């Protein structure tokens, strides 16, 4: 299981770092993408576009390195749940919009559709596996014990 969790960490971590880059470089464009979903009040779109990509980036880096792995995975799982809701909502209400998931280059990604829903559902489950089964193996915290916080054992 430890190898499975490691692979899950690397997949979700890389995905979040990759997805955050364009949003960090061009928050105004990401703000447009958020407005297209018609979920948040329009006024909030800028603040979401300024903060969300950094949460994605930091959580992704933490997953790759194994720093605060389970809290970082809790964040990625929560974000994937929100993204999944947004995509299902857009698809169900027939919004003909770009996904905006990885960039405004989303032209390459196309309009939101069933494939996006399946893809995000898969990522959500993989991220959830980290939350549930990570035991700190292959992490910086394991390699450098002084970095390790006092952990409360899962299920305590």
């Amino acid at each position, binding site marked *: 299981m430890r190898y499975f969790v490691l692979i899950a960490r690397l997949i979700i971590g890389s995905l979040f770092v990759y997805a955050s880059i364009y949003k960090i470089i061009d928050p105004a464009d990401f703000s447009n993408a958020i407005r297209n979903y018609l979920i948040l009040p329009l006024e909030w779109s800028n603040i979401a576009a300024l903060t969300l990509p950094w949460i994605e980036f930091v*959580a992704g880096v933490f997953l790759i390195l194994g720093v605060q792995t389970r809290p970082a995975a809790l964040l990625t799982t929560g974000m994937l749940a929100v993204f999944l809701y947004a995509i299902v909502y857009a698809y169900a209400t027939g919004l003909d*919009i770009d996904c905006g998931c990885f960039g405004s280059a989303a032209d390459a990604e196309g309009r939101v559709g069933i494939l996006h829903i399946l893809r995000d559902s898969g990522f959500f489950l993989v991220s959830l596996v980290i939350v549930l089964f990570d035991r700190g193996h292959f992490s910086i915290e394991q390699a450098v014990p002084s970095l390790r916080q006092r952990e409360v054992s899962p299920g*305590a």
Partner: protein
Amino acid sequence: MRAFVSMSIRAFIILAVSSGIGMGLNLASSKPLPWVYQPPKELTLEGTTVALIDEKEARKRFDDPDTLFVDTRTREEYSEGHVKRALFLPAYEKEEQFLTVEPLLTEDSLLILYCHGPECEMAEQVAGFLVQLGYKKLAIMSAGYEAWRRAGYPVEEPRG
């Protein structure tokens, strides 16, 4: 349970610090985004000012006989539902469809154009087309049909 609470607290700290980084960098940026997004009030197309209005403003004008709503989305979207009495002038076949719509337009008409959402460009494309033809009283309902429908304003949809 304690493990989950501990994990959630640490997740929240990561979230707060990361958000702080994003907001701090925005403050330090040479072109910071405003914290609160303010939709533009108007745009200018070839010298003509086109007001950008929200669905509430559009609703106020709905009962005015001199106001016409113009749906600029695709034929399929229009047939699935549109603002009540809206004319159909899609961006992708505006020249052809204009011949059908033209007799219904008068010089006094205020034309409120819309597409599906805030950032779609079809309403703006049709507005540009109408400006070229000499129409001056134009507005775009920026929030689009979805916001209008969600607000419970009058629509025409196929039965069943």
